[in-house]
């Protein structure tokens, strides 16, 4: 089981972690112009608004880039695949890829979100999208 370093949420990102605890992947949408961005920022650079609404994301996307993360000197620490995901809403998010071997990972692979307790902390995780399995 990999060790999860807990986030230290502040006023700008606590909403993300509270939603994750409930199994929802969300981002902020500007209340003024609807622009979404990740990571969240307290002010919309397009219209200047500091008001926002929470927007639930589909959790579907493709792999933009990926690595295998191992601790360099603690071999008993389980490796994790870290991915940068292009979400279909047009934003990018870092997460982990599960339920697949590193040898089978490829850029642009379709993935979908799920939520799992990792080291006792509920995190958004991704796995190969179900649609891909059907199409084989």
């Amino acid at each position: 089981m990999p060790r999860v370093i807990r986030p230290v949420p502040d006023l700008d990102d606590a909403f993300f972690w509270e939603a994750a605890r409930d199994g929802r992947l969300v981002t902020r949408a500007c209340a003024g112009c609807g622009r979404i961005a990740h990571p969240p920022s307290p002010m919309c650079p397009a219209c200047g608004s500091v008001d926002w609404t929470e927007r639930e994301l589909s959790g579907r996307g493709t792999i933009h880039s990926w690595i295998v993360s191992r601790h360099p000197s603690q071999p008993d620490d389980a490796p994790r695949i870290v991915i940068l995901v292009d979400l279909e809403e047009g934003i990018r998010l870092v997460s982990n890829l599960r339920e697949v071997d590193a040898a089978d990972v490829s850029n642009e692979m379709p993935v979908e979100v799920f939520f799992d307790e990792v080291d006792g902390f509920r995190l958004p995780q991704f796995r190969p999208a179900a649609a891909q399995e059907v199409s084989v």
Partner: protein
Amino acid sequence: MAASAKAAIVGIGQTEFSKNSGRSELQLAAEAVRAALADAGLSGRDVDGTVTFTQDTNDELALARAVGIEEIRWASRTPFGGGGASATVEHAAAAVISGMANVVVVYRAFNERSGHRFGQPAQQARSAGFNFYLPYGLDAPTKMYSLWFQRYMHVYGLTNADFGLYSVVARRHAATNPNAWFHGKPITLADHQNSRWIVEPILRLLDCCQESDGGVALVVTTAERARDLRQPLVTVEAATQGNVIDGDVLFNYYHPDIARFPEAEMGARILYETTGLGPADIDVAMLYENFSPVVFYQLEAYGFCKPGEARDFIADGHIDLDGTIPVNTHGGLLGEAYIHGVNNILEAVRQLRGTAANQVSDVRHVLAAAGRSAIILGRGA
């Protein structure tokens, strides 16, 4: 002062580069500054400005007590770690050209191997800015950067062995530089491929910069004053930072195309516009490389080759000492030492003075690029 006034680097100094200096970081800073002042023919009393990194542990007033700087008019620090290495010269140049200070020392000194080791995996949460990364295991610069590099590999079809082409060049240059930690120790591509994975399938051990103990310093004043000093004139032709919206030092994931390096492209644009020079006018390039792929990005951003061509450009010998644009002639941060990129600027000065261990002939312009900051230095008439 005329708008055409230029700054000049009139002194360089350093300690030895090691893995265990046995002395305080402040002592390293003081020794490096004193050496740089001696090189310039100046003393602490002539200094009225200081510039270092926000990350440097050495307090300006503590340094002043050690080297005898009686009054500091200008003290500033540059953000973004090694990415801001060349911004130190920008700060110093701004101070002396504006008249806000007369003589500025730039210093960077640390026990980065024997003391607090950079680049170790995080053990606990830091600021909220790390929240979207640390919980997923992205806990060290090697990994943080690799998630950026992998896209470049994918887009241009590179493997880790391609990055090793640079490592071999850096270690070859270090091998003939007595100042380098890896003096006399070149490597082959097979050595690179036999070194252990740090981040699979992106970085092996020999793609990573060293961990070093040491201090380096520069002395900056106006070109006008520099003419009365003892060293050959080395001018700051242009200096800029490269900070672009949606960029990030460690997590540069949010630009539309991350197979490119927009921060370095911005630096290139401003330096070339300011000087009227182009890539063909640069005789030697110092390219910051905490990890070997950053050289690939910067070769392309600064226009030495086209996007995606860095691999073949290196393989064809263009960055060798006898190539069209020799790169990191001292061995770089992989081969000489990792003094957070400021040792690259010292080598740029040596190449322009004609005193480098691996001297390139007739050097007139040197680029010293650090990803998020860059300078072009020139040989004065």
